[in-house]
């Protein structure tokens, strides 16, 4: 029965829905910010996730970062020691999809030795008629960058938990693996 603690950054272009996704997950779907409020400085929240078939849990410390270009100066320090990322893009704007990998690389560099991967998350899946990025494209880019791919809608709350449960399980598996190595190294 161990409680692990992971630092996870939510990154991506402006208005893709990083804050909406984070808040929907954190509030168990009870909160969706309809009106847009630009995130001007990193916002932190913590949410615990139980790992299936174990007594273990992972406390995710989520850092919701601003997407706005002009606010990027101080972000590097928040990405330091970051374990995982949720790279969010908007499925109705292909430009935000193209920028995801730039976000990923920036986070990977800033995070250093603690970095272990993450997910690529296509948000606003409810706006299917306006879709510019299809699932197959997302999966392809995720695969070539060692990420896993998910889609969700913060608006109607669908598939919000899935990517977060996935990274929690990933962190847990990494820990179990490391501890196994520590045992053999002794």
């Amino acid at each position, binding site marked *: *029965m*161990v*409680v*692990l*603690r*992971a*630092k996870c950054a939510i990154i991506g272009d402006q208005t893709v829905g990083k804050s909406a996704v984070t808040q929907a997950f954190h509030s168990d779907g009870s909160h969706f910010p309809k009106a847009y409020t630009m995130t001007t400085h990193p916002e932190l929240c913590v949410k615990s996730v139980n790992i299936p078939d174990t007594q273990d849990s*992972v*406390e995710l*410390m989520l850092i919701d970062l601003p997407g706005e270009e002009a606010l990027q100066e101080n972000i590097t320090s928040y990405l330091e*020691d970051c*374990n995982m990322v949720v790279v969010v893009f908007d499925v109705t704007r292909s430009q935000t999809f193209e920028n995801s990998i730039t976000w990923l690389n920036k986070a990977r560099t800033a995070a250093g*030795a*603690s970095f*272990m991967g993450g997910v690529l998350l296509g948000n606003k899946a409810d706006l299917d008629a306006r879709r510019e990025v299809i699932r197959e494209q997302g999966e392809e880019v995720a695969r070539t960058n060692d990420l896993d791919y998910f889609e969700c809608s913060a608006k109607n709350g669908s598939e919000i938990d899935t990517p977060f449960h996935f990274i929690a399980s990933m*962190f847990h598996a*990494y*820990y179990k693996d*490391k*501890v196994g*190595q*520590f*045992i053999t*190294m*002794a």
Partner: protein
Amino acid sequence: MPNVCKESEGAHVVLATSWDPEHPPEALVDGEEGTFWSTTGMYPQEIVITFPAATRVTTLETKSACIKNIVIQKSSNQSPAGWDDLTSTELTHSEGHVQLEDHKIDPCIIRHIRIIIKSGYEPFVALYSIVMEGTPIES
């Protein structure tokens, strides 16, 4: 001189920032080579060990895995407060091997020891043992 940093010598853990029941903080003072305290995510991490009496210590060695920056402090007060730095070291890392470090210290009187892990080469680190040769002084 005996290793005073063992449960059998009366040393015990009074604080630790990570707790996995399978690899608990107490593993550090159980006198066994193979057991370890594992950290469970994020830095910094710390552990405080208290000795049954003020102890004159002459050596300090650690056995660990994946630690990068480590700071060790001592206190000679009755309660664990008023910390002074003993060492601050960047350990080297070689994949798949433990780190054995002889921290060169001047002989000193210690009642409590505090180990702060500031960073790691991995998201998690292990601390197997601390060997401190010394003799308790009567108080």
